[in-house]
């Protein structure tokens, strides 16, 4: 039986790859090239690459120039995020865990801000000391969280029956979608300080977060608008017939359903946002990519950029994968009973 299946395998191989002379040559060339590339990569990984540039700077990649005796603070934050992800994905289905998961996720944000910025018993840290993966995560979390309500407001505004609000929202969304992200980020870093009155200063991290929020909320608004439009009018009629008022219908019937429909698109935006934070390296924030660049500027590690960028790619890939898995989990739990639209 086993022999038979092996024979079939070889027969298929012959039929598909070594059909005639020309095909055989082509197949061999492709195989050889692939093999050589793999071999070279492998050799570089093991023998040529000098991974000290990664291993001796791990704390820099993680925390940037955060004061070294306070580094337990961002470490606790990132670990708690990781633990929470693990519990969400494969934790036991105890009722109290399921009920408090959302609360736990929400509380990671004030916890993170408290741990990173200090105050109330912890020594305060200036935001120029933030860096590395910590800063990348902070940028992603804060921008996506701020842009969600703003995006909802814009989406509702675009559907509004008041012409002024409708026009303003449409113009805002169209303008933001017509400007490249990097231009918005430059605007945030260079122009906002000029517009603000003397004495008021927003630090660079928060200027970046606001710029991301302004940009991403336009896209989120369009995603949510798609959700809003797919809710049938009969839902609104049913809600009206129960005596709910306009505001309650929005809050209890329309927005929850629209968010659920828009969820795949929204998680897509969050993952995109995470990757786009790397643009801040150009504007001088030392987030994950920025810290890599500044390590490369160190004479000790000069010229080792392949190692650094391979490492950074791995880190970005890892975080994005975790986010994607979490997003899929969220979609599954939320859409489990949704067949009746």
């Amino acid at each position, binding site marked *: 039986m086993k022999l038979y299946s092996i024979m079939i395998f070889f027969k298929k191989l012959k039929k598909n790859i070594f059909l005639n002379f020309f095909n055989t040559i082509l197949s061999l060339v492709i195989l050889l090239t692939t093999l050589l590339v793999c071999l070279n990569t492998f050799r570089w990984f093991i023998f040529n690459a000098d991974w000290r540039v990664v291993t001796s700077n791990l704390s820099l990649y993680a925390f940037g120039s955060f004061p070294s005796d306070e580094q337990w603070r961002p470490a606790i934050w990132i670990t708690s995020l990781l633990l929470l992800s693990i519990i969400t994905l494969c934790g036991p289905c105890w009722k109290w865990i399921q009920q408090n998961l959302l609360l736990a996720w929400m509380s990671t944000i004030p916890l993170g801000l408290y741990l990173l910025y200090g105050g109330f018993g912890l020594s305060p840290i200036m935001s120029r000391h933030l860096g590395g993966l910590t800063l990348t995560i902070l940028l992603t979390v804060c921008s996506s969280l701020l842009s969600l309500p703003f995006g909802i407001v814009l989406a509702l505004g675009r559907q509004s029956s008041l012409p002024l609000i409708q026009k303003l929202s449409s113009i805002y969304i169209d303008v933001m979608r017509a400007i490249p992200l990097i231009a918005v980020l430059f605007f945030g870093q260079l122009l906002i300080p000029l517009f603000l009155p003397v004495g008021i200063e927003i630090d660079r991290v928060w200027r970046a977060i606001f710029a991301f929020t302004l940009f991403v909320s336009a896209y989120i608004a369009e995603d949510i608008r798609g959700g809003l439009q797919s809710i049938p009018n009969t839902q609104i009629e049913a809600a009206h017939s129960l005596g709910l008022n306009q505001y309650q219908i929005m809050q209890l*019937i329309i927005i929850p359903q629209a968010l659920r429909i828009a969820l795949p698109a929204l998680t897509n935006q969050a993952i995109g946002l995470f990757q786009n934070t790397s643009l801040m390296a150009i504007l001088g924030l030392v987030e994950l990519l920025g810290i890599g660049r500044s390590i490369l500027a160190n004479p000790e590690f000069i010229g080792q950029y392949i190692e650094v960028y391979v490492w950074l790619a791995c880190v970005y890939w890892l975080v994005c994968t975790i986010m994607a898995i979490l997003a899929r989990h969220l979609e599954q739990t939320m859409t489990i009973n949704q067949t009746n639209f």
Partner: protein
Amino acid sequence: MEPIVIAKNLTKSYIQGLRALDNVSLTVNQGKVLVVMGPSGSGKSTLIRTFNGLETFDRGELNVLGIKIDATHNERKIQKIRKRVGMVFQQFNLFPHLSILENITLAPVHVQKRHQLEAEEYGMYLLNQMGIDSHAKKYPGQLSGGEQQRVAIARALALKPELLLFDEPTSALDPERINEVLDAMRRLAKQGMTMIVVTHEIGFAKDVSDQVLFMDSGKVIETSTPDVFFSNAKHERSRKFLNQLEKH
């Protein structure tokens, strides 16, 4: 006997000539069941939807539970009516993102500001009455059409309404599922609920209704007791319609 709904000369026209409602007048007294019949497009759905303000009308007067509305469609008065009138739709229109019990407690909690626990208790009582209390934690998508429609009735009852409107409640159901919904409606009628029902179910109309109103192209053709209507309808048009219906 107190009149619950008094409609006087309701008229609603779409583009010129086409009238959805043409001088419709009717009275429904407390505890009575009115069945509205008619071919599709005759305006029966439009009529029943004006009673809780889902449709506007151009001329005429409407008095529902002592609240008078006219063509100006006063939003606050309509809101008052909606809090006291329940409605059941052809397509159930349950909220798919809420569980069965949440569907039912939504309006009592948010419109009548009742306590969550009290609303849930009453919701479970209603589900029990409808024979579907075992599904309370499920979602609408997991239920059959007949079960969903019974949930919709329970949802309409949750506000303790004084009038129930049914807009073709069994038209979207499998033939085997129709009876479970009709039985629930029969029980309600026995309990003395005032109901206006748009339906094609002759059996239900014969058993339960106190009056049958027959409409065609926006006009009331005849209003009779079911005995008269089904055995010896006054109007030629009604007889023709009944003939068509019985052939099926």
